[in-house]
């Protein structure tokens, strides 16, 4: 499904109104899209989007939460948004289990029995990786699904911040693909992109329990809400999540010089 023409039309209108050269404050606050989900295999990242929502709202952003939705629900916000946060599964590809790159952020769909996994695509080269596939855990829980990916990360022009709290979301190179975070930073020129080179874990079926993934999300967005800069909040969140125990010490912080480093003031970012 090719939504690129529609995206180009939507972006054109806003591009004309936004000057270039660093943080760009707006009379109408820019938007933040915060995503979490409860996946069929028991990965439950709910509350993460709410932490993001509360923080961005408190700092003057227009915010929305997407929980258990399709990827297409995030697409209409691209022209308005300057923050994207996804907590959940990533679609990965690579030659072995230890050598994979995340090429899309996965969405759980509105129902627990959904057989279509939609994703927001990073590396455009991975656009052909769609269609029927099977998603399995080592416990034997499998589901036949159809994967549909939509261009998204490459369309993050003028984004201030993109955070991909998912496995290998910043690990490049498997089969020659580029990760979500790297595409956000180098192609979309996002001000700050954050991802992980390692698998990152959540406590199973325990949303909001302030351990592992939930602790990361709670601490990161809580500190941003209080005015802490992105980098400091990230380090504190990694420690709160247990460091290397659940994979969070393997982060990458891709920051463009001159880009915003805090949620306030709400602003787009366009590199000079």
């Amino acid at each position, binding site marked *: 499904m090719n939504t690129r023409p529609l995206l180009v039309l939507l972006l054109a209108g806003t591009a004309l109104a936004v000057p270039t050269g660093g943080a760009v404050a707006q009379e109408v606050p820019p938007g933040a899209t915060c995503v979490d989900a409860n996946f069929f295999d028991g990965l439950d990242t709910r509350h993460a989007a709410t932490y993001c929502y509360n923080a961005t709202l408190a700092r003057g952003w227009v915010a929305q939460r997407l929980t258990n939705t399709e990827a297409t629900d995030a697409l209409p916000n691209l022209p308005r948004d300057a923050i994207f946060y996804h907590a959940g599964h990533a679609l990965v590809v690579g030659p072995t289990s230890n050598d994979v790159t995340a090429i899309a952020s996965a969405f759980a769909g509105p129902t627990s029995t959904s057989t279509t996994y939609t994703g927001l695509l990073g590396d455009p080269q991975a656009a052909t990786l769609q269609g029927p596939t099977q998603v399995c855990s080592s416990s034997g829980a499998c589901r036949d699904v159809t994967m549909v990916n939509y261009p998204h990360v490459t369309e993050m022009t003028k984004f201030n911040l993109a955070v991909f709290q998912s496995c290998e979301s910043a690990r490049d190179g498997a089969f020659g693909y580029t990760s979500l975070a790297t595409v956000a930073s180098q192609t979309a020129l996002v001000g700050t992109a954050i991802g992980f080179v390692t698998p990152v874990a959540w406590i199973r079926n325990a949303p909001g329990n302030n351990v592992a993934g939930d602790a990361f999300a709670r601490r990161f967005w809580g500190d941003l809400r209080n005015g802490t800069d992105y980098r400091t909040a990230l*380090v504190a969140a990694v420690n709160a999540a247990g460091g*290397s125990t659940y994979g969070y010490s393997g982060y990458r912080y891709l920051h463009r010089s001159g880009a915003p480093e805090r949620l306030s003031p709400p602003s787009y970012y366009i590199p000079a």
Partner: protein
Amino acid sequence: MTILLDREVTLSPPVHDESVAVYAPPAPRRGGGRAVLAAVVAVSLAAVSGAAYLLTRPPTPRADAVRWELAATAEILGVPAERLTGASVSDVEAPTGVRRQVVVPDRALLQFDALTREMNQVVFSDRLDGTSGPLLAREEALAVASAYASGHYAGFDSLVRRSVRVLDHDAFTEYRVEWQERSGEAWLPNGVSVGVNARTGTVAYYWSARTALTTSVTARVSATDATRAARRLAPHAQSLTVPELSVVLAGDGQQQLVWVVVATPPHGKGAHVAVIEHIWVDALTGIARVGAST
């Protein structure tokens, strides 16, 4: 001397629990005459009752008294307290309890145990960069990390160094050194992590956890039986790690002694979702479940 605090943030009503609250200090009292009068009245009452009268109200704080969190912050940062202009103080919930957090903008984030006042974390905001230049030698980094950790964690000598990792975060590279408490075979949820900036040789951050044990640390289930239980739960796993005995934090303050076995699923073809499972085999009952997953 006045410590300027950050302005209060006007927060929208949270939908779910919000872990951070902005601390509002009580207004300091003024007027030495009133304090004297109160003391006279109290003494008089004590005399009338004929019994010792215990004044239970805390002493009136001096208007210029420095809050303990800020005093401790100033000491750790090596600056006079009056230079902490713009610092904010709040309470945050950590998995091991409430922490008092101090943020000095562009300088540091610190956390203290709200009850014991032990410093649990410091992140030096101005030491999280450096993308060029040679990396510090491993032994030098270990020396820096060990010196800092031993100087800030009481009982550091009882910890076991568990890992040393070189981590390239793009913005900066660090040596992350983790020490953890061990009781027999069991790893406990107490320990220290120090990040040393691999290019500047400075401590980028320090983090510690200290919590009372609420579970036994003696396993009744063997590692071999734990492997079998994990295999039964994850029959399709491509690989299982060697079981490791640990006291894990399961959420809501709950501790559990488990054998941790990490199960890697079969490699998927094409684009797929990789679900790596941390299987927790209860070391007392032998019951296995997926405790965490990616």
